[in-house]
């Protein structure tokens, strides 16, 4: 005898096609909330303008190695716009769109990649986690945060992001499993940008989706076009509100594309074809939302050039602030190691200060 004891499917969500046309009969309210969409569009453009500026700063020796977010703007900002301030974000290292939405400043992003820990002392939500470089570890920190909210019966949700490459790590599966075991208010976003430095999505595993990793532990698991802000926001909002209401954690796979090098230290031309990147540009998120807004009579070239001018000015202010930030000083290497500096470290601090004289 044999019988099917469980069966699964993964839904894919999209509202805007790559030419910015709304399709399907079910037009969501958000698609007609132009005030909101325009503010989101503005942040997407600011994020990209900032990203280009950061790369330029690195190329001219004014910034360290920098991980670009080019192409991820809609997905990242959708995560931010679906969260509440009191929710907790545990980022990977290129999640600027989400972070800018939540209140992390451009100056802080530049400080961090400019080699200064003060960048992690966000003015944004003070409880959000710092940038996380060791791949996928942030997923378990988010699970821990979600555990705290559950134990304290707070209506808060932890949201974390991991890449398609990072999704191969055990931390992701252990976070998924924990979310299932404890019914945690957690949303794990797998930001599938097709490339883990030089290794393509197809070499991570042969499954049809990465979202289905969540099914193994019984989580709500969906896939969304991450270059479609409207769909991404709605999918994230649903996942986050499910979590908030105690209805369980989710895995959301956002399909996007890393339009540039992994970081400024990488050269993607070594491992992928220009033609592939050119094709990916046709689906990129900012042009798509702009076309939609234009087709609805909500946007035009004049507004665009005004926005670009404003964005450039805003970024110049941040760059100046970053470049004018004085050195943190030698004492800062020691002062935050412990709540109270142990005596042996106090001696090392005094030695270091004396050596520097």
């Amino acid at each position, binding site marked *: 005898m044999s019988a099917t004891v469980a069966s699964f499917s993964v839904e894919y969500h999209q509202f805007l096609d790559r030419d910015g046309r709304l399709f399907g009969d079910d037009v969501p309210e958000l698609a007609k909330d132009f005030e909101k969409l325009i503010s989101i569009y503005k942040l997407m453009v600011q994020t990209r303008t900032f990203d280009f500026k950061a790369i330029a700063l690195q190329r001219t020796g004014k910034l360290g190695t920098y991980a670009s977010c080019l192409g991820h703007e809609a997905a990242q900002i959708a995560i931010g716009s679906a969260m509440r301030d009191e929710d*907790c974000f*545990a980022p990977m290292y290129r999640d600027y769109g989400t972070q800018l939405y939540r209140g992390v400043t451009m100056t802080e992003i530049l400080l961090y990649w400019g080699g200064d*820990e*003060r960048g*992690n*002392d*966000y003015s944004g939500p*003070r*409880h959000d*986690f*710092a940038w996380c470089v*060791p791949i996928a*570890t942030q*997923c*378990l*920190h*988010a*699970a*821990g*945060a*979600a*555990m*705290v*909210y559950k*134990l304290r019966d707070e209506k808060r949700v*932890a949201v974390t992001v991991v890449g398609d490459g990072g999704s191969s790590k*055990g*931390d992701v599966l*252990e*976070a998924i*499993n*924990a979310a299932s*075991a404890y019914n945690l208010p957690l949303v794990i976003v797998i930001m599938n940008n097709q490339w883990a430095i030089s290794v393509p999505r197809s070499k991570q595993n042969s499954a049809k989706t990465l979202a289905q990793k969540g099914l193994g532990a019984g989580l709500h698991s969906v896939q969304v076009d991450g270059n479609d802000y409207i769909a991404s926001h709605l999918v994230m909002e649903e996942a986050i509100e499910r979590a908030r209401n105690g209805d369980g954690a989710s895995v959301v796979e956002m399909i996007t594309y890393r339009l540039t090098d992994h970081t400024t230290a990488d050269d993607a031309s070594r491992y992928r074809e220009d033609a592939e990147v050119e094709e990916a540009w046709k689906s990129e998120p900012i042009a798509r939302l702009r076309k939609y807004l234009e087709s609805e009579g909500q946007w035009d070239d004049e507004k665009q050039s005004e926005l670009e001018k404003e964005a450039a000015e805003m970024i110049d202010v941040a760059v100046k602030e970053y470049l004018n930030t004085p050195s943190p000083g030698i004492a*800062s290497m020691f002062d*935050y*190691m*412990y*709540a*109270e500096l*142990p*005596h*042996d*470290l106090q001696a090392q601090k005094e030695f270091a200060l004396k050596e520097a004289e």
Partner: protein
Amino acid sequence: MPKVAMVEALSMAMGSELRADKDMVLMGEDIGINGGVFRATSSLQKEFGDLRVIDTPLAETMICGMAVGMAAQGMRPVIEAQFMGFVYAMVDHMISHAGRMRHRTRGRLSCPMVLRMPFGGGIHAPEHHSESTEAMFAHMPGIRVVIPSSPSRAYGLLLAAIRDPDPVVFMEPKRIYRWGKEEVEDDGEELPLDVCFVLREGTDVTLVSWGAMIKETLEAADKLAEQGISAEVIDVATISPLDMDTIIESVEKTGRCVIIAEAARHCGVAAEIAANLADSGIYNLLAPVKRVTGYDTVMPLYRMEMKYLPSVERILNTVKKVFAVS
């Protein structure tokens, strides 16, 4: 007052702090109804419920990674690695996050967590159950490493570890979990996390040790007394940060130092103590600093483990050498 063993004293400390601090939770494998494989959390789940004493899925990385997240969000998780041999799946989160959290966020977030684990050899356990790798954790910035060697010190040091605002690795010498019972008052009094304990005063040689080797070290001191040699015995207890002042002060008096550790020798905590003595105590030394340690081999399976661990005899033979030169 009935006498208690170390493992019971640890349980008392955890119970005391669970009562005092609603933000404290225990997490680990089999720590709930089973009370932990060594019974260190015996009856705690019964008293505090399964939301305070939390059994976890069998996933060590998850336990430690979640603890980092929980601590950063304001709780005080005390997690257990069932044996030190299984702690390596947790190490990424300790070195990459727990020890760095306060520093890299300029104090915006911190990581007040305790990672408890039984460690060390001598109980005829299976493979991977007997190593002593405290030096690995002691090398990590931002993390305290504490090893008790008696029931009363276990009680006071664990309370201090739980209340400390930074991450603490708390290593429990399981060979002496049930040795040396003492009266331990459940008074919530903590012990300092930055001083060594002088267990026995002496004038001729300083024996420095920690964890289960304190047992052999004290026995060796008794034997030396019979020979007319007065040994001072120091329990380091707080491996990191290390209190060298107490050790140097003792060596100023005795002029001789033997360090006893069951861990492998190379790059061990004993080497760090010896290096500090060479740096700051050399003019008080009448003889070279000697170490009695495990060998730089894989910890053998249990038929040979007592040959690996320093014995009273090996300690005495080494002490003899530091008297031979002066």
